[in-house]
């Protein structure tokens, strides 16, 4: 039953990913990419990683892809011209995907992924030691329903990976400021409303009694 659902979701993900590349219309590509994200999120859900699944939808589908689609709709892009280079770039694309595949295999075979088993005393429930198994290819297994995903991720994110987390936040902040600086141009030739000025305006500023 579970493997059936796995094959349905992963198959649909691959199909829609293919459609993203092959579709003639960019908007249709974006719709297919959104569908692909949904399937990836369903795969996360099957592993019991509901926090990741919902965050994937919230950030990628709910925010990033909306902007993507928005920009695509606003731009006038000649898609026929873009498609001319398809065969030209095919070898490069294949090479990149091959390198990625090799990297995944290498990462899986390396000693980075270790299985840590918490050994506890079966009677008292006291912690004895962490048993580390090296040289394994990690096997994804669904978590039990009792594990609160969000809380567990928060625990490691704010303790073990604090430094990496802060660095990532800083990089994002720099990107944010960069985007503001790039687009902040004060134009003098446009009519612009100053809301504080409008609010502060009183009857005395606007009305003048004319003696007739």
């Amino acid at each position, binding site marked *: 039953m579970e493997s059936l659902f796995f094959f349905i979701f992963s198959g649909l993900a691959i199909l829609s990913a293919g459609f993203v590349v092959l579709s003639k*219309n960019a*908007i*249709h590509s974006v*719709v297919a990419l*959104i569908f692909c994200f949904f399937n990836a999120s369903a795969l996360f859900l099957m592993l019991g990683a*509901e*926090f990741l699944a*919902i*965050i994937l*939808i*919230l950030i990628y*589908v*709910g*925010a990033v892809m*909306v*902007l993507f*689609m*928005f920009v695509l*709709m*606003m731009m006038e892009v000649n898609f026929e011209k873009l498609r001319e280079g398809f065969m030209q770039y095919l070898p490069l694309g294949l090479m990149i995907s091959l390198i990625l595949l090799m990297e995944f295999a290498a990462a899986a075979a390396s000693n980075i992924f270790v299985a840590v088993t918490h050994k506890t005393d079966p009677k008292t429930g006291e912690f004895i030691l962490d048993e580390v198994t090296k040289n394994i290819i990690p096997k994804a297994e669904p978590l039990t329903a009792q594990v*609160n*995903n*969000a809380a567990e991720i928060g625990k490691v994110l704010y303790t073990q990976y604090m430094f990496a987390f802060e660095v990532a936040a800083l990089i994002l902040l720099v990107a944010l400021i960069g985007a503001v600086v790039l687009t902040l141009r004060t134009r003098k030739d446009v009519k612009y*409303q100053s*809301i504080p000025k409008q609010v502060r305006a009183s009857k005395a500023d606007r009305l003048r009694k004319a003696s007739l």
Partner: protein
Amino acid sequence: MIWESVQSLFFNLDGAETVLFTLGRWVLSILAISIGVALTVAYTTYMERRIIGWIQVRQGCNRVGPFGLLQPIADGIKLFLKETIIPAKSSKFLFVVAPVLAMVPAFIAFAVIPFGETTLFGYWDEPRVMTIANVNIGVLYVMAISSLSVYGILLAGWASNSKYAFMGAIRSTCQMISYEISMGFAIVTVLMLAGSMNLAEIVHAQQGGFWNWYLIPLFPMFLVFLISGAAECSRCPFDLPEGESEIVAGFFVEYSGFWFATFSLAEYAAMILISLVTSILFLGGWYAPFPFLDALPIPGTVWLLGKAAFLIFVFIWFRATFPRYRYDQLMRLGWKVFLPWTLAWLAVIGLLIYTPGLEWVLENPISDWIAWR
């Protein structure tokens, strides 16, 4: 004999629930909620027309049935029987899919809404939460699903291949993006006090009288959430995407018949959802305003639906009172007013929780808002 064979379909010999029981429970609860939402939507339109009529000193619909009560049904039949026109130069597939994409998120978000607690007349020992899925990340789920509703509007505007529809779609997208962030931060302040993303847990944290509701410590956030909610489901005064005086009907100008009705259905369902979520996050969910009222034999669902109905009334009141915002003012309100306010209140709540000597503000003998400490 027959009763026993029926019983054996749903329960094993040891009394455990069978797969058929689980499936049946799911189907029944999904049907109950979706039919309930659809009927509520129909009568919300009636309520809206009557209330606006009352505010504007006129009658509203009062011809079909007693007090016009059959009007929504007559409207539904009329729209259902009308011809659906698909524009010749539209993108046909997306044109047909867009209304469905608008409606589905509005309905599936109700899956995590807890409608109350019940022991089923003493059948269960412990009261169980009345919801389809009692998940730990309920708040995130509602946020994620409600952010999807923009796709229906965006695709409808694009697929129509019409200038006005396209402009409506673009307005809608800008609006959604600006208001979602302040809404998210308003929710974060609730999470800081409740210490859980489970909607039922958030309601439990506000038990025991209205002085325990999050409305009081988070009053500015309540206002931000309510107004952003109106913007999120593009209700007046933020109904720029359909502004009929400027862009005819906005993104659904090319739609007719039942596809047209689907968009209104989605909009009203989103409004009901926002009202329910606001009552759950800030107004104590299914708890009565005074603890002695909880002891009465009134189901908690009545209190929750009553609060939600009041908020729906407030939304309708907005519509009858305020003129439509201009577009740049709407963006300004989202980014320059609400976002700083929510960020500031985040800091205030954080300081009140952790500053030594200030704990009494949120944890005092009268009301204890911090549920996790």
